């Protein structure tokens, strides 16, 4: 039978099917962090169940960490306790932890791929919905709740129903100034925030084939914003080149053998999907969001649509925007370039290439937060730090930061923030904060101009 990429990886991990019920799916890699793991460790301890496969777990501290003075003790007592708890749990259970300050520390979905932990054909989970990011490598990767974290601790497996399959194809070539972030914001704006619920999504076509791994990760990262549990892109030479030589990647003949296997994974010609959508690359332009869910996105030069329903109105009221209004020239005081969606080296290169030789607008507070220590080091090694600093930007230390504002990096009440993160929910970046999602290029341009501009009208 003709199989999809998803089928192949899924079927290879089914331990058993429960009669009239879910399947037992084996999990190759389990990533954990400080916020969604403590209750799972407690659960196992209370039930006196040992961690089944500690060597298949990797931990990092990212959600609740400061982005300045990471060498000093964490000031916030509750955050400090959560981080200490993670260290203690990992130590007691023989789990590798890249804690704050470690050279491999970073946002879980940035550090695992960059260390070569993420590989094609794997099953991966993490107590974080953006685990879908790792699907960029042709892995089945998805977010789980804390009860499921405990299940994987106890058995390295999960009980799941096999999701349905969905394919989104985008052919053609992207216009100047259109980045991976715009592609996924465009797709979500067309399909809506629950179109993918119950599905695993494969992205196919020229646009994704020609995309860098960083771009593919940006796309797969936001699969959850259309409701899909995960996204996947077939592994190819771009994938293999990215993995080669990384810390935990297979080496030598083992690597060659793996590549042979990985090459068998792409969807067979003629395989059936439960749902298919197709878009043209030429129709995609730089995007921004105007509302309080990621599906409320428009081309930067378009006006906010007119819609008549209470949720839409509530959303615009929160954002203090009007239906029919254009967002061009809206003054913006905050810009955030970071989060597991857009905090990789390529994102900072794009931002730096726009910023170089310009100055940040006076009204703007701009935070640049690399996704990991390694990205931070690369920013410095490539000389981007001085580009940013000369332009008046602040390069902070890695972590989730203003993506979810658990630490001090909060956008003040009522302020707009053009953000490269993935969620524009009410209060996501701090109580009363108003988030406008965009690509790193649009974010950089906003910081320089102090307002939203149409980047396509600029020399890029």
């Amino acid at each position, binding site marked *: 039978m003709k199989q999809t990429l998803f089928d192949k990886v899924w079927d290879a991990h089914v*331990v058993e099917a*429960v009669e009239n*019920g*879910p399947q*037992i799916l*084996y999990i*190759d890699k389990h990533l954990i962090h400080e*916020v*969604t793991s*403590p*209750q799972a460790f*407690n*659960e196992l301890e209370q*039930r006196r*169940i040992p961690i*089944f496969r500690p060597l298949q777990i990797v931990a990092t501290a990212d*959600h609740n960490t400061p982005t300045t003075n990471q060498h000093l003790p964490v000031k*916030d007592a*509750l*955050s400090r*306790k*959560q981080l200490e*708890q993670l260290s203690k749990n990992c130590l007691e259970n023989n789990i590798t932890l890249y804690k704050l300050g470690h050279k491999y520390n970073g946002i879980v979905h940035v550090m695992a791929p960059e260390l070569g932990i993420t590989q094609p054909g794997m099953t991966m989970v993490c*107590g*974080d*919905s953006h685990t879908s990011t790792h699907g960029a490598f042709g892995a089945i990767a998805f*977010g*789980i*709740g*804390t*009860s*499921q974290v*405990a*299940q994987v601790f*106890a*058995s*390295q*497996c*999960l*009980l799941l*129903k096999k999701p349905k399959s969905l394919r989104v194809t985008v052919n053609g070539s992207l216009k100047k100034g259109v980045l991976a972030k715009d592609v996924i914001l465009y797709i979500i704006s067309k399909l809506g*925030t*629950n179109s993918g619920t119950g599905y695993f999504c494969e992205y196919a076509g020229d646009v994704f084939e020609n995309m860098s791994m960083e771009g593919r990760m940006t796309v797969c990262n936001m699969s959850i914003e259309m*409701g899909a*549990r995960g996204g996947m892109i077939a592994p190819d030479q771009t994938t293999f080149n990215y993995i080669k030589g990384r810390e935990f990647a297979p080496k030598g003949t083992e690597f060659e053998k793996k590549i042979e296997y990985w090459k068998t994974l792409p969807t067979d010609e003629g395989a059936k999907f439960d749902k298919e959508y197709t878009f043209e690359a030429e129709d995609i332009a730089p995007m921004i969001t105007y509302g309080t*869910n990621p599906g409320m996105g428009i081309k930067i030069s378009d006006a906010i649509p007119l819609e008549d329903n*209470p*949720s839409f109105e*509530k959303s615009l009221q929160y954002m203090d925007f009007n239906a029919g209004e254009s967002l061009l020239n809206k003054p913006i005081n905050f810009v955030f370039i970071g989060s597991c969606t857009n905090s990789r080296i390529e994102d900072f290169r794009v931002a730096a290439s726009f910023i170089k030789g310009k100055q940040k607008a006076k009204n703007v507070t701009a935070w640049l937060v690399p996704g990991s220590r390694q990205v931070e080091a690369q920013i410095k090694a490539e000389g981007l730090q001085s580009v940013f600093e000369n332009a008046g930007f602040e390069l902070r230390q890695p972590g989730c930061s203003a993506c*979810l*504002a*658990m630490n001090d990096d909060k956008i003040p*009440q009522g302020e707009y923030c053009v953000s490269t993160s993935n*969620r524009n*929910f*009410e*209060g*996501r970046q701090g*109580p*009363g904060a108003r988030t406008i999602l965009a690509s790193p290029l649009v974010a950089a341009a906003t910081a320089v101009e102090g307002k939203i501009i149409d980047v396509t009208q600029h020399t890029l």
Partner: protein
Amino acid sequence: MEKFSTLKSRAIPLNVANVDTDQIIPARFLKATDKKGFGDNVFRDWRYDKDQNLKPDFPLNNPKYSGSILVAADNFGCGSSREHAAWALVGYGFKVIVSSFFADIFKGNALNNGLLPIQVSETFLKELFNVIDKDSNTSLTVNLETQCLSVDEINLSTIFDIDPYKKTCLINGYDDIDYLVSQKEKIEAFEHLNKH
């Protein structure tokens, strides 16, 4: 986990679509290392204004409404995978959430905490909102065994779907860990075969 069989209760209506888990429990309350206390902060920024006064127009604050059933609008629980959202709803006292659509991860999290998500048709949901709007004392009955949700006074009822395995778990108060741990040998055999 607590066992679930039947429930008769009044309901609190929350007629807002796309309620995400950041609204159910904002991130700044996720610093705890146990499951307790989240109920106090459920819908925090909708229940309180910025000076920490209760907002009287929010349904949870409206003395007209009470009960352990939340009737919510479409696409409830989207966004983050935080199980804290389920803990917050359970902590506040909810046992059932009714909606026309639930986000995947939230649904699983709810079931793993004995919180029953009941998906109904949009038409049924609309009627339910109408009925509660007309008479906030209306009580709903949930029977998990027969998979039936009904409003007895007015003869309105619907059958809902639930995964048979999950149904057994809820009725008996079992969870997936018990089951998975009992399958250890098979899991080890799988590992051996696949050289993990």
